[in-house]
């Protein structure tokens, strides 16, 4: 069926090319039927890409090793679900997933908006199709997943480190995020091309941006959890270039989600918002370039390929295209109002934006420096962890504080007396927390202590917001406390959903500070019966067992764990030797993790080396509060869902606005 897959991709390329040419012509000449035809071409492109993806998925499920890609990333013993996730285990398959998600998003975006603001949406079709042309071209010409060969008896198998549930979900979520940023980008460019620089494009893309941003955030947390349990180095984020590649567009999109509120509330920052959307999209393409070109050395990247220059060309086109449009439309993007005070909520949003973009660009510099230094001087100078940690503290801690200050300050302006009143409660909570933590010994890490103090301030400010809002709601409607609480959230979903997301960020900050600033480590070679001790734990090595499974030979070290003399039971850590093609078996460390769900602390055991005499070299960490990072993911998702939930009252208000203005919600 490889021919069908290839044919489907050629059809996708043809449809997308048509959508670009016909869509641009229809938009420029205001041809209604041709615009509809271009839109349909984009929708049909999703259908044909779905067929191509179906063919490849069927190839994996049937172990059709006549497909080179399937043979290189799967084998007969691979478990059922991993056979499917092997789809995106390599360059070509993951590019196809990219295209599938892109055409899916594009089809949905143009279909949902087909009767809204047509003069704007008509330009969105060619922009989205243009991005899809690039990817379908790569899949047809440069990196086809449908190359065939004489079928070998068995395939090479999937990289063992990818055989993990988190790695099954991590790439699709990341792609949903990366690709999702193409939709607000296309609407922003559509707004510039059509000259409709009013709020329409923001209204149309608000949910798309939030969905992409949520997916990117969840994708990164899934990847961090995968690194934590699977890679076996004792951490979850290594400032690896490919990890940073996902963080940068997330930061730019976070800045956009905040600054867009200033445009909605005050009619300000129109240029800035368009710049942020373009930046987020270009960074998502840059991230894809980093992952796929082989220019950086990363465990997350695909092997070196000749696909890099194509992505570089796409980045250049996107940057030049968006910059030219923004400059061309500058006169239409002038703000209608000005910042009234530097002590106001919009000013806080502005500071937040500056810090987020500064952090984003600092990371970009750290990622780009090795590439630039190699290009200029011939030697790659790698930017290490201290660089990133330093700037995370410099920009991240003030950002954390601003999350608490923002909700306490009114829009437009705030007096010092008013500020004093609203800040007193959270400030007292923060100071008391800081003093208590200092007395408990948290002063060993000043950044950690500051992070906890600021976190307490933010949590107190958010709690105060909920209490005040619920009380005011009760006074208005005489509802019960729970009724008023839920009614408050239901009537202000974006605001209170946003606060829940802020709680998630605070949990994340506490988890990162705890596990990085207050962790402890011990290492040593143990024979049976010997033990290592740290932070009150005692880990005693009891011996090895071996097990043979269809996929791997597994060796496990059994450990007895106690804390302060009290037995906590046993745990295992070991290595898997995977049976895959090649001269050497692939070996992975299977770390042992014991979680204390009450304190969020982990005892983390890495069997660095298993010796022939039965002794094992262990590295053992105690990571306080690390589990708050994963809890943050759940809270983050909850907050995003609240913010995303449709608000009928707002929909009605917008419908009135656009009907009044004669911008038909249901046009011809």
């Amino acid at each position, binding site marked *: *069926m*490889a*021919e*069908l897959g290839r*044919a*489907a991709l050629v*059809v996708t390329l043809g*449809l997308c090319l*048509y959508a670009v040419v016909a869509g641009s012509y*229809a*938009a420029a000449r*205001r*041809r*209604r*039927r*041709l*615009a*509809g*035809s271009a839109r*349909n*071409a984009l*929708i*049909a492109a999703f*259908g*044909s890409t779905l*067929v191509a993806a179906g063919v490849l998925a069927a190839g994996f499920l049937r172990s059709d090793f006549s497909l080179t890609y399937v043979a290189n990333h799967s084998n007969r013993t691979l478990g059922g679900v991993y056979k499917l996730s092997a789809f995106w285990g390599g360059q070509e398959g993951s590019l196809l997933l990219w295209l599938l998600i892109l055409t899916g998003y594009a089809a949905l975006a143009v279909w949902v908006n087909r009767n809204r603001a*047509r*003069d704007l949406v008509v330009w969105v079709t060619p922009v989205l199709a243009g991005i899809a042309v690039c990817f379908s071209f790569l899949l047809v010409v440069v990196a086809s997943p449908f190359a065939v060969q004489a079928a070998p008896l068995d395939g090479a198998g999937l990289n063992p480190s990818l055989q993990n549930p988190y790695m099954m979900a991590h790439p699709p979520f990341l792609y949903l995020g990366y690709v999702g940023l193409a939709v607000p980008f296309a609407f922003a460019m559509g707004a510039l091309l059509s000259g*409709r620089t*009013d*709020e329409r494009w923001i209204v149309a893309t608000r949910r798309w941006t939030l969905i992409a941003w949520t997916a990117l955030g969840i994708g990164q947390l899934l990847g961090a959890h995968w690194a934590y349990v699977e890679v076996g180095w004792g951490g979850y984020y290594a400032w690896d270039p490919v990890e940073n590649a996902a963080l940068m567009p997330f930061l730019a999109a976070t800045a956009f989600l905040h600054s867009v509120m200033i445009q*909605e*509330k005050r*009619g300000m920052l129109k240029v800035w918002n368009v710049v942020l959307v373009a930046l987020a999209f270009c960074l998502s393409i840059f991230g894809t370039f980093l992952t796929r070109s082989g220019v950086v050395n990363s465990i997350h990247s695909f092997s070196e390929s000749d696909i890099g220059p194509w992505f570089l060309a796409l980045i250049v086109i996107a940057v030049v295209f968006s910059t030219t449009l923004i400059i061309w439309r500058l006169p239409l993007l002038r703000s*209608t109002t000005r910042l009234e005070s530097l002590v106001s909520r919009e000013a806080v949003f502005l500071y937040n934006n500056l810090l987020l973009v500064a952090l984003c660009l600092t990371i970009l510099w750290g990622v780009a420096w090795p590439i630039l230094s190699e290009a200029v001087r011939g030697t790659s100078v790698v930017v290490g962890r201290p660089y990133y940690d330093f700037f995370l503290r410099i920009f991240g801690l003030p950002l954390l504080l601003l999350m608490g200050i923002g909700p*306490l300050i*009114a*829009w*437009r*302006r*705030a*007096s010092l*007396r*008013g500020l004093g*009143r*609203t800040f007193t409660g959270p400030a007292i909570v923060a100071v008391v927390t800081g003093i208590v933590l200092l007395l408990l010994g948290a002063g060993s890490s000043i950044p950690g202590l500051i992070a906890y103090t600021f976190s307490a301030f933010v949590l107190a400010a958010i709690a105060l*917001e909920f209490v*005040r*809002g619920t*009380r*005011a709601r009760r*006074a208005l409607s005489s509802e019960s406390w729970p009724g008023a609480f839920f009614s408050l959230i239901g009537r202000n979903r974006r605001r209170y959903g946003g606060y829940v997301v802020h709680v998630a960020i605070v949990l994340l900050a506490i988890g990162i500070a705890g596990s990085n600033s207050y962790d402890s480590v011990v290492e040593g070679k143990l024979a049976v019966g010997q033990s290592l001790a740290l932070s009150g734990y005692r880990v005693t090595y009891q011996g090895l067992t071996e097990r043979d499974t269809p996929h791997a030979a597994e060796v496990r070290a059994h450990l007895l764990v106690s804390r302060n003399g009290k037995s906590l039971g046993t745990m295992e850590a070991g290595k898997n030797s995977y049976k895959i093609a090649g001269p050497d078996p692939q070996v992975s460390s299977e770390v042992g993790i014991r979680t204390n769900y009450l304190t969020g602390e982990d005892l983390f055991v890495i069997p660095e080396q298993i010796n022939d005499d039965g002794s094992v070299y262990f590295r053992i960490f105690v990571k306080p509060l690390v589990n708050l990072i994963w809890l943050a993911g759940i809270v983050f998702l909850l907050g995003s869902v609240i913010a995303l939930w449709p608000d009928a009252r707002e929909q009605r*208000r917008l419908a009135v*606005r*656009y009907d*009044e*203005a*004669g*911008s038909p919600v249901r046009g*011809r």
Partner: protein
Amino acid sequence: MSTALILGAVLAVVCVVLVALPFLREPDPLSDELDALTPERRRRLALSEERDRALAALKELEADHRAGRVNDEDYRISIGPLRREAAEALRALDGDARGKGEQAGRRDGGD
């Protein structure tokens, strides 16, 4: 010809039909022009956005005051300009609508 190629051809035909659908549905339309915002509609939309912004700001201030985020003094200072802004936005929108009505009336009278 293999099954795969036949399926590929069917896919291509379905896609072509879908792309041609707007022309097949309306081979000879009365108008093939897209809706567009005239400068007049654009201005009205800008005024509507101004009005919504001003009313939302008023509502927000009331809510902030009720919730205790804004004290009485700040509330008194802010409420006046906000009410003025909202009134101006509403007046501008009304004036625009009246102007349009008069224009339409003159056009009707002239016909």
